């Protein structure tokens, strides 16, 4: 019975310890984490304890047996001394039986001791393995910690990189938006600069033009002087003087022609909006330069017009008429000025040394004068009147030479035509009439009319118009800009403006009887 149990003990724990060792080896890393390992260990310990107790019992029994044996020996010795034959044999038998039992037990003890040794070895092995596992586990833990540290480090690095990346991204975005802004600014700057350059170019061009005009005016004046002085030299005309003189006459003819055409172009206009059409006129003029070819049968005395100067101040202010002045006009020689007023008279003024001197008063109209014009030759003057007629005077006669009647309402405009002996009138009856002065007859056609009169400077560079606010406005035709505004001299709305053909003077007249002579001097 005891041997059998010892057998099971020797085989069983071996397998068990082996299994537990493997389990420990497998689960070395997770000692605490896996409870089943602990459970196995506990079971093994429990078995150890139980077997240990059994052996203790056995040892106790054996020592009791030894005591009993010594007791029996004592008893035997006593019985030997007490002679009893029957009991002796039975005692001997008993003793031999006991000896046999003792031998068996001793054998059992040896066997059990061997088993204990084996178990202890297994236990040692398991301990060693356990320690090894512990060490391994510690190493693994270290490694794990190191790896964790590295992971943290890497994460931190990643974080840093991410921040850097974000910062760079932000910077890139900023730089890109700055780039866009800069590009926009560049565009604006370029625009501004080109604008400035345009202005500079326009300024340069107009300066060049002004200079060349001034130069031409200068030269023309010199020519004029030369031409005048030629008269004295004419009788003794030598070859060079005649050479110099002939182109001058020709020149005068041509500039007369030019002025005549000009006069018709400085027609009335309502607003600066007409610039476009005026420009067109000029452009056409410039390209094909003989729009109206004239017979050159007349040599007119001529005031040369080459450079109009923008006036800056008033030279003279005078009460020219009894009532409001409606019309004003320079003669083509620029030395004579005509004004027409509501007081039914037309007055002639001489323009001399920057002042106006009254020369004559022409009457004959039964109503106010609306419009005045000299003929290109400077011999006659034409006026339009409220009395539905246009009246023609000779300058040296205050009595009208011809009165042109036929309009059904007031005549607002009267002009000499480019054809000799022809006159054009415009009326509030919405007709324009072309008159032949020889026959004093007319033919008419319908059109609209306007009331404010703008004039173009003789060199076609400026446009002047009087305003209802009492100021004269002068625009530059080529740029369309307002060149100057001449205020403060009129107390009522300006009814008409005239620019002298010499370009020097501008006269404005108003509804409150006042005429102002303007100049740049």
């Amino acid at each position, binding site marked *: 019975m005891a041997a059998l149990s010892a057998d099971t003990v020797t085989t069983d724990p071996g397998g068990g310890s082996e299994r537990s060792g493997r389990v420990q080896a497998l689960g070395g890393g997770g000692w605490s984490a896996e409870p089943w390992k602990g459970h196995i260990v506990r079971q093994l310990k429990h078995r150890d304890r139980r077997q240990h107790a059994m052996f203790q019992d056995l040892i106790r029994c054996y020592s009791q047996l030894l005591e009993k044996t010594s007791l029996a020996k004592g008893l035997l010795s006593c019985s030997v001394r007490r002679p009893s034959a029957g009991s002796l044999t039975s005692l001997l038998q008993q003793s031999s039986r006991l000896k046999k039992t003792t031998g068996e037990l001793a054998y059992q003890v040896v066997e059990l001791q061997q088993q204990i040794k084996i178990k202890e070895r297994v236990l040692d092995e398991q301990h060693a393995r356990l320690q090894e596992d512990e060490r391994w586990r510690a190493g693994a833990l270290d490694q794990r910690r190191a790896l964790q540290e590295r992971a943290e480090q890497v994460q931190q690095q990643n974080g840093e990189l991410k921040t850097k990346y974000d910062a760079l991204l932000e910077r890139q975005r900023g730089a890109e938006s700055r780039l866009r802004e800069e590009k926009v600014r560049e565009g604006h700057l370029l625009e501004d600069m080109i604008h400035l*350059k345009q202005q*500079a170019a326009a300024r340069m061009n107009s300066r060049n033009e002004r200079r060349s005009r001034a130069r031409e005016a200068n030269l023309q004046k010199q020519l004029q*002087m*030369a031409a005048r002085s030629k008269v004295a030299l004419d009788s003794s005309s030598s070859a060079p003087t005649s050479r110099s003189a002939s182109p001058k006459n020709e020149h005068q003819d041509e500039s007369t022609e030019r002025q005549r055409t000009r006069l018709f172009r400085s027609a009335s206009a309502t607003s600066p909006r007409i610039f476009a059409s005026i420009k067109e006129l000029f452009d056409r003029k410039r390209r094909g330069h*003989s729009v109206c070819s004239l017979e050159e049968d007349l040599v007119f005395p001529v005031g040369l017009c080459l450079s109009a100067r923008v006036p800056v101040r008033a030279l003279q202010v005078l009460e020219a008429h009894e009532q409001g002045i409606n019309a004003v006009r320079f003669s083509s020689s620029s030395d004579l000025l005509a004004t027409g007023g509501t007081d039914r008279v037309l007055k002639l003024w001489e323009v001399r040394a920057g002042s106006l001197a009254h020369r004559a008063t022409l009457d004959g109209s039964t109503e106010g004068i609306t419009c005045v014009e000299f003929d290109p030759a400077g011999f006659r003057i034409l006026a339009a009147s409220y009395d539905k007629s246009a009246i023609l005077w000779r300058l040296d006669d205050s009595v009208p030479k011809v009165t042109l009647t036929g309009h059904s309402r007031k005549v607002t405009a009267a002009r000499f035509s480019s054809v000799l002996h022809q006159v054009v009138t415009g009326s509030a009856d919405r007709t324009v009439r072309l008159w032949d002065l020889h026959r004093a007859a007319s033919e008419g056609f319908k059109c609209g009319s306007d009331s404010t009169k703008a004039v173009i400077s003789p060199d076609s560079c400026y446009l002047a118009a009087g305003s209802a606010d009492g100021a004269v406005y002068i625009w530059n035709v080529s740029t369309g800009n307002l060149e100057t505004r001449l205020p403060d001299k009129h107390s009522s709305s300006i009814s008409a403006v005239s620019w002298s053909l010499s370009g020097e003077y501008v006269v404005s007249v108003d509804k409150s009887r006042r005429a102002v002579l303007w100049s740049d001097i």
Partner: protein
Amino acid sequence: MAESGSSVEFSGSLTSSTLPPPRTRIFKIIVIGDSGVGKTCLTYRFCAGKFPEKTEATIGVDFRERLVEIDGEKIKIQLWDTAGQERFRKSMVQHYYRNVHAVVFVYDVTNAASFRSLPAWIEECKQHALGTEVPRILVGNKCDLQDSVQVGTDVAQQFADAHSMPLFETSAKNPNSQGDGNSGNSDHVEAIFMTVAHKLKSQKPLVLSQPPGASGATVNLSRGRDDGADGGRSWGCSSC
């Protein structure tokens, strides 16, 4: 010339006290061509007498002036150094051509494309209604770069002849590098512009520009016109 001379003589004793002396004449000359052909350098060379250190693209226009004396008369040559790049010039063109007295077309002899665009420049010139009396010259710039010449003189000369323009090859950087005899040792760029100035001076003795609508009002102008009409041809040939 005779007229102006005598008239000045005439007035001299009579009016010199009352009239201001005649102002200096100005010749407005525009310099036109592709961007980078050296318009700025040419004009700078003529007006400042040296090659500019560095130049940037011209925006709009730059003005350069130089006072020269021709036959005893002081004349101001006003060069309009125009922008070659379209975006820097498109809104400026009308100003370029206003009352211009002469046109200088410039191409780069080392850049065939700049030569090929010349018809376009000439066309633009035409569109701005420039009369034949306005002298035009053709300048091939950068001829100091002899190794990289792309536009041969013969080709350029044919083109110039076809458009009745005199041709000049020069270099704003090194104007004396031109080996031909007519420039000699003198500054070739200078000679080119002075030739134009002489031409202008002889073409229009008295009247510098036609005022708008003047329509040939003076004898001198019409003479100038006649001169220019047949002068265009002779002008083209004389300088070849």
